[in-house]
């Protein structure tokens, strides 16, 4: 009996593995088909997918809604800008390290404040803390450039450096896309493992029933804290990857409406699924890019889209598709 379940799971898991591999291959082939701009957009999409994945560890798996994740994203980006400007670091690997360490420390600090709270109180605490960071980024002109922000040059990637001369933009986007793709694949794998590990189950248990989790001997605060730190660091990693691509960072990326956008993309994909925020991150990037390109009132378009999404597919894109597939397979089984 038990062995049988194990076998079924193994089949399902190897299926998943094959599908993921195929998707990764397609993602790897796309830049050869797409133009530079589309490749750039896709890179943004993957980056926001990483941000959403981090955010959803808290929302979907731990049951905590953070309204301050912009702080991690923004600080990850600012850390890169500082390291590049003040320490003269040009190497992306070192910049990544700086970004990850900075957001890790920030998440630890936020986590200490937040992990004792739940529900709206947790959300407000995250919001208040992130707003402190936002205010500082705005007011400390001499360091951050205030609301003008800071610009960031293209870093060197691995052994490829010096993106200059003709075609540099294209080459950088092309190389950087693969850089992001590899990190994306690693992070998706790690997070998938995490979500299906004993610790991942513990988080879901806490989400479902805090009291009972306590009564099986789980240290709830500690688990929430760990989840928070992983979540914040991952969203921070997204910010770190994002800034070389935009070349510019302003306090807007730390401001609370940006936290709202992270929530938006996660729910767009669906927060009850592992893959929801991944799809959501990519879809949101395209949605926003096209809205911004087609009208000055792109927020209006996003808002309408948001309402339509919530009304028409409350479980997100992934939820919609999985219920469609379920309906389809049950029909084909019957007939």
């Amino acid at each position: 009996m038990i062995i049988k379940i194990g076998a079924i799971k193994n089949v399902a898991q190897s299926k998943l593995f094959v599908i993921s591999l195929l998707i990764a291959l397609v993602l790897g082939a796309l830049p050869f088909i797409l133009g530079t701009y589309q490749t750039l957009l896709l890179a943004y999409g993957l980056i926001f997918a990483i941000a959403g994945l981090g955010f959803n560890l808290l929302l979907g798996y731990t049951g905590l809604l953070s309204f301050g994740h912009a702080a991690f994203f923004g600080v990850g980006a600012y850390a890169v800008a500082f390291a590049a400007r003040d320490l003269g670091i040009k190497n992306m690997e070192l910049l990544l390290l700086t970004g990850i360490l900075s957001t890790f420390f920030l998440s630890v600090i936020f986590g200490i404040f937040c992990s004792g709270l739940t529900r709206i109180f947790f959300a407000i605490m995250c919001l208040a803390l992130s707003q402190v960071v936002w205010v500082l980024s705005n007011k400390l002109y001499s360091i951050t450039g205030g609301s003008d922000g800071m610009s960031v040059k293209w870093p060197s990637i691995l052994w490829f450096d010096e993106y200059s001369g003709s075609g540099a933009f294209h080459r950088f986007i092309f190389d950087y896309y693969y850089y992001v793709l590899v990190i994306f694949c690693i992070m998706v794998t790690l997070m998938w493992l995490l979500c299906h590990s004993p610790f991942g189950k513990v988080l879901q248990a806490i989400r479902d029933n805090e009291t009972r989790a306590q009564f099986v001997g789980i240290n709830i605060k500690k688990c929430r804290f760990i989840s928070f730190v992983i979540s914040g660091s991952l969203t921070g990693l997204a910010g770190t990857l994002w800034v070389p691509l935009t070349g510019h960072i302003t306090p807007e990326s730390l401001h609370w409406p940006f936290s709202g956008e992270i929530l938006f993309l996660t729910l767009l994909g669906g927060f009850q699924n592992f893959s929801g925020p991944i799809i959501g991150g990519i879809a949101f990037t395209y949605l926003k890019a096209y809205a911004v390109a087609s009208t000055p009132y792109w927020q209006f378009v996003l808002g309408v889209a948001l309402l339509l999404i919530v009304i028409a597919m409350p479980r997100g894109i992934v939820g919609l598709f999985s219920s469609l597939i379920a309906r389809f397979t049950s029909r084909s089984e019957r007939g």
Partner: protein
Amino acid sequence: MTLLETINLKKSFGENVVVNDVSFNVDDGEVVSLVGPNGAGKTSLVNLLSAYLTPDHGQILFKGRDITSLSVSERIKIGIARSFQIANLFDELSALDNISLSISARSGKTYTFLSLADRDTGVQNEAGNILSLFGLDDKSNIPAKELAQGERKLLDVAVAYALKPSFLFLDEPTSGVSTRDKAKIMDTISSAVRNEGVTAAIIEHDMDIVFKYSDRIVVIADGRIIADGPPENIRDDKDVISVIMGSQGNEV
């Protein structure tokens, strides 16, 4: 040998004294029933003993050691577990995962981050065994929220049982279950508990079950212990029976 002892335990909510000066003890390996009318303070007593509530007054000793100030998780570590009167489960998780969670928490696997939970055959097999012990093996992949009322109560008990406690509190394990299934469930629980030598305190309203399965009966009314003894003695004590039965009359 005395496993658990309470000394003058007291708890009130405002004016309402719900556990009043309760002193009693439970021996190693005993199966004790806690009975009494609705609102007598049985659940509150268990809440005190499992650290869900803190007493206003009094002491709790476990294996001779004062555990009054220990937290929930510390009490679980020394082997005190409980189930709940209203099934208290991880609703989105499967029945099997509900149990595996107890097992991995017990065996210190909570902080395992990068290995698949369902590949841990040790935990999976043990969870499967416990599920079949409670007759739930065909429900193993069903989310707890989709189980029937009686199955949820059983799973609730199984989650506590999977912690391998030396002392197990069961708060009305058969409430919400049809009379016919009650005996089956109690048979299951009783044999599981006795085979493992677990000491148990069971809150129960059905007196037939109480008389059949317990070594000793403790009767509580208005927060006080009004009788304490083997089933035969309680059965013959007319006054006590009328207190308990009065409540059953109310219930029906």
